């Protein structure tokens, strides 16, 4: 009992440390510096209405909220400016550019690059005291948050620094490109030019949408703000759109600009309503569904619901309690919490599907979250099959731990798992891609879940357990357990938790998951080969991603055969299952970010 408590305590502490670490990281990410805290104006602007306006770009129609998210991502990376929503910052940067000239809003990712910049600026400040009294404070903050102002980043003393860093295409050129993109994107004229919000008349699917500045000079009741001539070339409007409609749009836009610069939130909200009502009337047939845009705006405002990881974590805690103490209320609570988490997860996935109009599996963010969701589905199905065995609840545990890690990564590492929705590359439009990627990510999540139970087994072995393994590993365990147990107990009450050791149960869980992932990984690789055969001209090209998928499979081949030969089957199975998951993660992380993109050191 003491050992068991110890095990639990260990696991619990590990989780707690992880959680605290992550929440403090989250706090750091949220308490961003910027030009002050959200003002009264910022909090009263109705971003929901503005966010629902459709913007055309990159071959997609997205909500302004999600468009702003993508654009502000180029400027401030994962940081939020002054706690403002990206949609607010976008408009504010465009309409009050002066407020941002010396605000620390541009995100520099690489710490070494931050240091080079800080050193050069510090040296320049020694010669030019006029650069600002608070400069060293700001530079210290810059070292931490990575945020610096456009004025400082444009300082001529940085030119030689940029030139030197740009010369290295492998390590630092990308960082300087990012700074230059950020400077270019936050230009008011650029931000305005990306507001393709006026649909083409007649609803022609193949014609690009018009920029608001093509319409905003059309005369109407509201006077033209003086800033307009600085922002865009004067035009007479779009020839084939009804002039009165254009005047309505232009008036609403001008009103919005006036109210914004005057800090009049009510005025902005009224203008936004008029604008969002007037725009669809230009071409109702192709204007996207208002509901969809609203949901898209909401989805991005809620951080893609990635905070669900917290619910998953609660479920992990209860399910661990149930595993260690065999405590029934903990089991049921754990399953209940898991169900809630899985419901949120499912909702987020379906919502993303609805918003993007395609099954979410075409970028890293989607692959990770969808894969974790598959794990949840797998767990639900397997749990139905094992509901009468000692293994019950453990698949939920595996899935909850996996989804927790996946959603945490999505939540805290948006730099790597970019949540913005884009179109798929043409090469990805294929039914085999759908089957292949889904099967592969399903097998990957099973591998991870197997590693969770294997890790639990190893902890158990390290603390209390002795050599133990499931007598009939894998699916056999499900089919044979009842037969053996019935024989053992004489057909009486079966599935007593006490009948077998935790080690045996955990090993059984690992084997069930391992067998399933073994078949799916193989099938997934074969399907990938079928896709590659007609897409690239060869089924197998020894591409690092392929090789490491095969390498993962080789580890499981070894696992199956080692299990045949060794005495301590449970231990070796657990070790190899963890190694297999390591190779799988290596494929997902190192191969994706380092090997195939050798020039993307971060």
């Amino acid at each position, binding site marked *: 009992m003491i050992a068991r408590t110890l095990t639990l305590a260990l696991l619990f502490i590990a989780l707690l440390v992880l959680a605290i670490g992550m929440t403090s990281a989250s706090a750091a990410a949220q308490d961003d510096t910027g030009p002050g805290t959200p003002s009264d104006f910022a909090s009263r602007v109705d971003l929901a209405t503005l966010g629902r306006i459709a913007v055309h770009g990159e071959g997609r129609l997205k909500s302004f909220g999600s468009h702003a998210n993508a654009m502000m991502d180029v400027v401030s990376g994962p940081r939020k400016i002054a706690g403002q929503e990206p949609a607010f910052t976008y408009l504010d940067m465009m309409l009050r550019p002066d407020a941002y000239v010396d605000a620390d809003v541009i995100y520099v990712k690489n710490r070494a690059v931050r240091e080079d910049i800080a050193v050069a600026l510090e040296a320049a400040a020694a010669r030019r005291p006029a650069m600002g009294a608070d400069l060293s404070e700001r530079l210290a903050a810059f070292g931490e948050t990575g945020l610096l102002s456009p004025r400082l980043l444009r300082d001529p003393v940085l030119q030689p620094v940029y030139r030197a860093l740009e010369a290295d295409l492998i390590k630092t050129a990308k960082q300087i490109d990012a700074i230059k993109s950020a400077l270019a994107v936050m230009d008011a004229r650029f931000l305005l030019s990306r507001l393709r919000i006026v649909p083409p008349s007649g609803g022609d699917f193949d014609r690009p949408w018009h920029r608001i500045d093509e319409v905003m000079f059309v005369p109407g009741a509201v006077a033209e703000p003086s800033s307009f001539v600085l922002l865009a070339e004067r035009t007479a409007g779009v020839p084939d759109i009804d002039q009165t409609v254009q005047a309505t749009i232009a008036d609403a836009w001008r009103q919005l600009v006036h109210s914004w610069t005057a800090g009049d939130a009510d005025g902005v909200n009224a203008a936004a309503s008029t604008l969002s009502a007037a725009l669809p009337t230009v071409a109702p047939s192709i204007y996207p569904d208002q509901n969809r845009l609203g949901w898209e705006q909401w989805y991005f405002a809620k951080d893609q619901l990635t905070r669900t990881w917290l619910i998953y974590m609660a479920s992990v805690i209860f399910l661990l309690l149930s595993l260690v103490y065999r405590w029934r209320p903990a089991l049921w609570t754990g399953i209940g919490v898991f169900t809630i988490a899985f419901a949120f997860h499912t909702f987020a996935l379906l919502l993303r599907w609805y918003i993007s109009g395609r099954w979410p599996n075409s970028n890293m963010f989607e692959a990770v979250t969808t894969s974790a969701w598959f794990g949840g589905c797998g767990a639900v199905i397997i749990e139905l099959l094992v509901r009468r065995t000692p293994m019950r609840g453990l698949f939920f545990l595996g899935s909850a731990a996996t989804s927790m890690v996946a959603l945490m990564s999505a939540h805290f590492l948006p730099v790597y798992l970019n949540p913005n929705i884009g179109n798929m590359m043409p090469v990805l439009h294929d039914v085999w891609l759908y089957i292949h990627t889904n099967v592969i990510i399903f097998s990957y999540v099973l591998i991870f879940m197997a590693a969770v139970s294997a890790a639990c087994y190893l902890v158990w072995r390290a603390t209390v357990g002795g050599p133990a393994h499931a007598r009939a590993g894998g699916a056999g365990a499900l089919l044979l357990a009842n037969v053996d147990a019935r024989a*053992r107990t004489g057909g009486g009450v079966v599935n007593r938790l006490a009948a077998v050791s935790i080690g045996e149960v955990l090993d059984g869980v690992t084997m069930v998951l391992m067998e399933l992932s073994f078949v799916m990984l193989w099938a997934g690789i074969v399907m990938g080969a079928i896709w590659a055969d007609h*897409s690239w001209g060869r089924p197998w090209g020894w591409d690092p991603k392929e090789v490491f998928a095969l390498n993962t499979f080789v580890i499981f081949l070894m696992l199956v055969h080692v299990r045949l030969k060794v005495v301590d089957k449970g231990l070796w199975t657990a070790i190899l299952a963890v190694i297999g998951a390591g190779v799988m993660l290596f494929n997902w992380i190192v191969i994706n970010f380092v090997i195939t993109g050798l020039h993307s050191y971060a």
Partner: protein
Amino acid sequence: MPLQPSARDHDSALALYLLLMSDTSPTPALVRTPARGPARLLLDLFSSVPFGISLMALLFVYMSLGSAGVLYWTSDGWTHAQMRQWRPFELTEFEWFHWWPFDLLLLLLATNLAITTVRRIPFKPVNFGVWTIHSGILILLAGSWIYFGTKVEGDALVARRRLVAEVLTTAPNGTTTVAHRSEVVVSPGQKLSIGDGDRRYQLEVQSIDPEWSMQSDEFKGTLAYAVNVLVRRDAPDSTSFMRQLLAGHPEHTEDVIFSGDAAQPMKRAKKELGTAIIDPALRLSLTYEPQQWFYLRTELSKCWALYVRDAKKNGLNENPWVERTITGLPLYNDYIGDRSLVFQDPSEQPLPLDPIDVTVNATDPANDPFPDLAFRVTGFLRYATMRSRFVPGSAQSPLNPVARMLVTGPDGQRGSYQLVALDPRSNKADEGVLQFRYVANEAAFAALTRKPTLRFVIPSLGIDVREPISSVALSNRDVPFKPLPVPAATPDAATKGYAYRVITMQDDLAFASGASSVAVVEITTPTGAYRRWVFADPALTRDVTEELLKDPRAPKVIGDPSIDVIYEPGHGLALVCLVAGPQPEQLRLISAIADEPTVSDVSLNKPITLLGGLSAAVTEYEPRAVAELKPFVVPRQQRERDAGTQFAHILLEVPGVGAQWVKFHSYVFDEPSDVLRRFPFDPSTVRLADGREVEVLFSRQRLSLPSPVALDSFELTTHIGGYTGETGSIRDYTSLVRFDADGTWSEQTPVSMNKPVEYGGLSYFQSQWDPPDQARFEGDRASLGLNYTVLGVANRHGVWVMLFGCCVAVAGMIYAFYLKPVIKRRQREAVYASVAAAATARASSPAKVLS
């Protein structure tokens, strides 16, 4: 009545259970003879599961090393390297995975798998799964052996159209014959000369609209590939015009003329002159440009080749290229035997000396024009660009002053510039603000110290005045016109209407005939307003007209000859002018930053303070510099990631003649007229000891396609809003191709992403496209793209065998994991039932138990 077995029965049940479990392990029933010969030992080794596991572990290590490479610690921190790219290996991924150690590993594993299965896994229902999996894997390996053993993969560049130009002559009896014929591939900016005498035409593909919406009633709205050819005839009276050709619609070919009307500069000849073709003696048409070759891919395996042909001077070379395979050449690293052969970045580690010597013999002596000539490749550079650098010449070297200047700004910013005084393209920096000149005498030096000046001469009024240029209007459209600075005695009325302003100045414009400086001046005279290019050489001065802008060779026009303007450049736009001469070693610096230019003597590395915190120093100076052309080895961190072998060079040695660097070409074109945008064509000519000349080109091996393929059309499918220049807006790329089926063209066949086409035993894939592109250098034309496609070409023998093997393995896995437990469950239930039955029997006859 429920079954109640005794404790004893329980034990026997467990014993049975263990027995049943044991059949997943190899049967221990092998008969072992005490003395085992080596053959037997080998057989036992190959029947061993641990041996198989060891082979799998080795396979894992081998695959990881080849694919992910190695990570090791150096003084710079963790370093990642692709081991297969190291000098001893020089292997592509594909080659690493077909290298003998890998093949051997697979062979051992396959043997182990086969022998163990046969010897140690009894062929009975519970083991059918394992047998099936193992068979599937062996079938897969056999399929891979066929597939990779016969694998051929490459790409074919297919242009969309070829322009055929014919000059017709009409005999007195009315019959027309083709007097001249010439062809060029359709690509923006491609040029062609054809005909002779005053029937000599200069043609240029001015623009291409791949999606031209047709105007004629019959085809209204149909999209066609429109090629606009600028036609100029070498005759004094002829005017230029544009001929528009539409692919697939030769009957709609028509000429467009320059109208001189600013509102509509181009007008259809049909409407203006009543004839669609204004010069019927020139016949232009579009034909397919079939491709008959595909080139093997260097990414897959090294497939270098040297192409040779007899060089022909002055004219089209119609000799075919003959391919020579180069084997033994590396791929990833640089190999030289002498560091003086290349330039390197001084901050880089010097290249190791690691010479190679690869002989390139005629692969096909029957067709090779030089069957006995053996080339040698003695150097290889993976990534280099040819660069010219200046090195000090000897006392006999011609005068060529070259200096390096370091300019330091008030903020500590520094700029370093190499300036060549006698080269008008590289004697300036920072848009002409910094210049380097050579003067032959003091008078020329004195001229340089003067401000740029305009001299106005109006002979009728006896006016001849000079005025220094104080401002230019280039960036400021509001510079006012200034009246001429005339002597007070001149009557006002006479000069009324003469005013000027300077738009810009340009020093040392290079022409074919030399160089001259120019000021662009707008003048108003009593007769009107003119924009005039005022040259330092008055013979070149002319007014800017529409014709001149279209064609720089248009005849000279002076709108109002009553006034002469002459440009005296002085120091021109230069604010800082470094001057060499008249003594070659003498250097002086003219600073024109202040109102009055100042002159200082210059010595090396001594900074000269200019105005506003600026200072300048000459850090290097060589009066008789000699240019050296060598490949510059681009440092690794500056190499474009996706460049592949584009920048590879070999050092080609011709026995008894010498060596020269030859650069890599992705494709082998026959003529410059075949070259498409983005692809280089720069064959080298080698003069042999016997005076013959060989043209050589370094490229990839190529194979002929079973049927030549032509690109009929190329379509871009987009997401909502059409193609916006963002890749995210593209949904698919489709090449509509036709194959040459024994002289007739096949049906139009679409090849798009994920939808390859099989023809004549090869599969064709959509691989690259021609995106729209801005003009890339001065004189270049912008392109709307879609003028060519690159098709992947590959064979796929054995694919079905591989697929069959994989499916068999899947079936085996499902059997082993999910059917076998069912079988075992039944067996075990039967065993328990019999145990229970036996127990019941025992209970009824205890005597038997006692016996």
